[in-house]
């Protein structure tokens, strides 16, 4: 398998490989070659291919070859991982070659958890190799003296680059890399990635503009074996829990050594865990793992897993990345995976030996998901991945970076602008945009110029030293910025604590974990809910704590929205559409699915893969419009909001709407038989309609809050007090309302609009959808509901109806209660 000559490695290293009974892999030798040639390099290799060692090998060789001398040490290699746990794990693995070869190399890690004493020591006596996170890099940029500290930096390694590049964290990381490059112009960038659809995009992202990183590919592993579970019972019409298949899932767990069961949300994880234990008569050791559990509990599960004591773990995307567990021999995906890249990543968690195939079982939760799982299985077989569009760097992040740079050292606008242009996500930023960002950092960027004396960064006057350079206003302002770096905005969470009574008052006892505030707010005292694998009774909220008591046997409340947080990818959606219109492919499906498709064909129509079916029918006094774009929950959600507005204007009196990954439904009081479908789905809805709706939407407020925090307008932490997420949420809404009325083109409102359009609304995708169906809409009038319409119709009443009137409706309902109460 490895064609390269053995003398490519220094003798000491070759001997070490020999002593372990290994021979260096081709891509490991190629990485050493690329380093000798001084090239920025992206390594794409499947899990289990010795990727981490390949990344570090050149640094270990260089460090082992440096002449002995007593010049002061400085950091040679900086390793950055998106996960703290991964940095710690890599540290452990790296110690093996270092100690076995007795290399004179010091390795240390540094994360948010590292103690003050150790951090200070690292500043005075830097290790040769430092393992850290993107947030620490942002902090380094804001240090005074960082230019000297990193002057001799030779290599920076970015791990799991595929998981971080397409996010605000990625934007900040890339700006940080540009900064490091200016400190150490000879710096070589190395990226480690899982298999991706478009390696060229990552090659550009990794290297400073206008360069492109050299690509090294690891040998592909054996192709994975993927099966879809065609349940023996009927496949449900709708839902997201896949409860019908739990007995079969347990059988599969029993037949394997260790199974990882991936689900798409925490609710799903809790529910699946609960259902499995209800039928787990043999008490097979099955554990639960998700991001909201107390850290201690997660570590317990991870340790038990590493010792091989567990037969299965039900988990969320918290285990998509990270530590290698070796012994996993099967991955189950419960409910459809929604995208092929995520599925391949998850399948890779099984069997980290390259020469044996990973095995996976997909368990669809309902009928459309059967089609989707089939499509995903085919996509994996063809190794076909979802693509991700390149992203433009967010300006709130640029603002944070500019502030950080000013905290580190005085800067000239021209120089920093040139440096920012070398960062791929920001290579298109115009000088005008850049100047706006600098003005925002300095004065808040308001049309009303009243904050001149409160500038956060100031330009030194001509008479002073450093004339014309921007610097931070004072030490206190710099200290406050350093407390607030990073691009992760935590969702407001509350501690879940077991209530204990003390002198008649309930107080919080042991912490069970953390849950989203928004979910807990929907509970009323006395409600039962599932968390950490148990049923709890909700007692109430005091401060930052939700108090609970154990309630075994109580019937837990299922959240109204519990489906996938991921939307069906464009790529898989296309495959599903093709599968539906290919009648030959139906024969591969279970009999009840075939019957379902046959009845649809007889009663309505089966659209071609380019067409969009729209069914209109009357039930009782209501008219229903059900459309099937097959384009994912998020763009469907946006589309239904806009359709409802249009139907309102047409006098159709829409009463409600609901959307899922495959279809959307709107119901009205007014008749819908006379609708001009082409006009209704016209692309121009993305103009003023979208703007008008968006400005009122809670999505904008949420996006604005994030931008306000990341840009430094609102501080998450200030000296002496930790601001709780709850207070922040409230005050940014007030600021949003005022700013929207008085300066609608403000930088942060633009940022928030861009974020909402790209993220929670997926406007770009909706645009492509409307373009795709133009002139290809197939309307049909039906006498009664069609088989395809049943799944989405069943979701009516389970989903909260979002929208501008919903909040007033809640108040109206409570006011009506009062009147009833008063008259009784």
């Amino acid at each position, binding site marked *: 398998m490895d064609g390269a000559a053995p003398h490519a490695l220094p003798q000491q290293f070759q001997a070490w490989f020999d002593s372990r009974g290994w021979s260096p892999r081709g891509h490991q030798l190629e990485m050493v070659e690329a380093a000798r040639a001084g090239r920025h390099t992206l390594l794409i290799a499947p899990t289990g291919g010795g990727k981490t060692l390949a990344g570090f090998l050149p640094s270990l060789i260089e460090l082992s070859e440096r002449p002995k001398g007593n010049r002061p040490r400085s950091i040679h290699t900086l390793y950055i991982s998106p996960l703290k746990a991964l940095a710690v794990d890599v540290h452990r693995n790296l110690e093996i070659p270092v100690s076995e070869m007795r290399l004179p190399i010091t390795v240390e890690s540094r994360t948010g958890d590292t103690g003050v004493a150790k951090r200070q020591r690292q500043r005075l006596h830097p290790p040769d190799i430092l393992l850290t996170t993107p947030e620490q890099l942002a902090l380094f940029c804001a240090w005074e003296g960082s230019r000297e500290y990193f002057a001799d930096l030779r290599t920076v390694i970015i791990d799991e680059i595929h998981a971080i590049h397409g996010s605000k964290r990625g934007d900040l990381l890339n700006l940080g890399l540009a900064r490091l490059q200016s400190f150490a112009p000879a710096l070589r960038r190395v990226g480690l990635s899982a298999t991706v659809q478009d390696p060229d995009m990552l090659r550009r992202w990794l290297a400073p503009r206008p360069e492109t990183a050299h690509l090294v590919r690891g040998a592909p592993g054996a192709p994975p074996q993927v099966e879809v579970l065609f349940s023996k019972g009927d496949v449900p019409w709708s839902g997201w829990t896949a409860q019908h298949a739990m007995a079969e899932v347990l059988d599969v767990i029993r037949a394997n050594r260790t199974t990882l069961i991936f689900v798409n949300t925490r609710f799903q994880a809790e529910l699946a865990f609960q259902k499995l234990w209800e039928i787990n008569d043999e008490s097979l050791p099955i554990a639960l793992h998700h991001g909201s559990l107390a850290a201690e509990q997660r570590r317990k599960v991870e340790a038990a897993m590493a010792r091989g004591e567990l037969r299965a773990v039900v988990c969320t995307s918290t285990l998509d990345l990270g530590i290698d567990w070796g012994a996993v021999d099967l991955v189950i995906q419960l409910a459809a995976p929604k995208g092929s890249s995520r599925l391949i990543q998850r399948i890779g968690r099984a069997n980290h030996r390259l020469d044996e195939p990973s095995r996976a079982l997909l368990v669809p939760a309902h009928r459309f998901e059967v089609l989707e799982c089939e499509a995903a299985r085919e996509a994996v077989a063809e190794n076909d991945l979802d693509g991700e569009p390149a992203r433009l760097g967010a300006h709130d992040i640029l603002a944070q970076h500019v502030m950080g740079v000013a905290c580190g050292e005085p800067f000239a606008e021209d120089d920093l602008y040139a440096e920012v242009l070398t960062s791929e996500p920001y290579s298109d930023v115009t000088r005008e945009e850049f100047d706006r960002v600098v003005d925002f950092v300095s004065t808040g960027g308001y049309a009303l110029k*009243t904050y001149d004396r*409160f500038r956060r960064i100031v330009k030194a006057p001509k008479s002073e030293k450093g004339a014309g350079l921007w610097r931070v206003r004072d030490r206190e302002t710099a200290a406050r910025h350093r407390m607030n770096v990073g691009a992760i905005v935590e969702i407001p969470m509350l501690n879940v604590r077991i209530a204990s009574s003390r002198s008649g008052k309930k107080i919080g006892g042991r912490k069970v974990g953390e849950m989203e505030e928004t979910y807990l707010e929907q509970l*009323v005292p006395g409600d039962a809910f599932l968390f950490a694998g148990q049923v709890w009774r909700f007692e109430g909220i005091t401060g930052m704590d939700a108090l609970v008591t154990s309630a075994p046997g109580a019937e837990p409340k299922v959240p109204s929205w519990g489906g996938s947080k991921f939307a069906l990818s464009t790529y898989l959606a296309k495959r599903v559409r093709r599968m539906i219109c290919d009648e030959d492919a139906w024969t591969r499906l279970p009999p009840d699915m075939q019957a379902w498709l046959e009845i649809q064909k007889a009663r309505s129509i089966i659209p071609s893969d380019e067409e969009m079916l729209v069914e209109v029918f009357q039930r009782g006094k209501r008219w229903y419009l059900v459309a099937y774009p097959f384009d994912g929950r998020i763009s469907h959600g946006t589309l239904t909001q806009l359709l409802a507005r249009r139907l309102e204007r047409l006098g159709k009196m829409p009463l409600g709407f609901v959307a899922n990954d495959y279809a959307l439904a709107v119901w009205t009081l007014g008749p819908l038989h006379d609708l001009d479908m082409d006009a209704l789905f016209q692309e121009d809805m993305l103009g003023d309609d979208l703007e008008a709706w968006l400005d009122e939407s809670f999505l904008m407020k949420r996006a604005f809050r994030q931008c306000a925090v990341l840009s430094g307008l609102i*501080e998450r932490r200030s000296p002496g007090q930790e601001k709780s997420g709850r207070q922040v949420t409230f005050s940014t809404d007030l600021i949003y309302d005022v700013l929207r009325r008085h300066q609608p083109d403000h930088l942060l409102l633009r940022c928030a609009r861009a974020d909402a359009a790209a993220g929670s609304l997926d406007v770009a995708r909706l645009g492509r959808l409307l373009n795709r169906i133009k002139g290809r809409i197939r309307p049909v009038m039906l006498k009664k509901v069609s088989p395809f319409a049943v799944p989405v119709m069943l979701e009516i009443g389970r989903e909260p109806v979002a929208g501008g009137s919903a909040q*007033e409706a809640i*108040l109206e309902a*409570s006011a009506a*209660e009062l009147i009833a109460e008063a008259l009784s």
Partner: protein
Amino acid sequence: MSGAQAIRLRLQAPESLCGSLWMEVADAEVCLRKSGALWLEADGVLAAGDLHLEKGSSYASRGQLLPPYDTAATLDRLEAEVAALNPRVVALLGDSFHDGRATARLAARDAARIVALARSRTLVWIVGNHDREGPGALPGDRADEITVAGLTLRHEPALVPVRGEVAGHLHPCARVAGHGGSVRRRCFLTDGQRLILPAFGSYAGGLNARDQAFAGLFARSPIAGVLGRRVHAIGWGSLTGD
């Protein structure tokens, strides 16, 4: 709850013109406006609590550059109420300014708007804990409290149940949970004997009506007049904590 006897609401069709809630507080007829202001029609008195003018610039002076439009936004709403009702007296129930130096930071344009408000009517600045320094050179009378229609208007509510008091200070807000989510809005709180006004200032935060600070103020469970497209009268039992 014996709310029906204790609290006399004048129930109106929801589509009533201005969305106000009319009711009796200690035998005086009062109108709770959806802006959060109180209108005492018989005496031509408009009252608003906790304007917190220049809160934005107060934060800016400490390094958080909040949009400098809060004073203008608050005055916009106050002017709209004055234009709609043409009051004889405008009573501001304290904490009209966010801090002692706020009047010095006030933009000339905003100061001129306040001067205009005081023209052809009486402006009364009731003293609060944030603005003991008073309104500086701005026109109007200063007072610790005033009495209108048998009601005493002051900044801080007395800590025991009292009859006929209207106060601000606490910034009450109500959280109402319903199907699919919860709503948190500013609100009036009253038991028919006394009344707490919501904060009127654009950047003024809110304190949940279920907070301990409200315990002991009311002789019986109060109702909340929750601000929205109209003032929604909502019973104590429907309010939840944060």
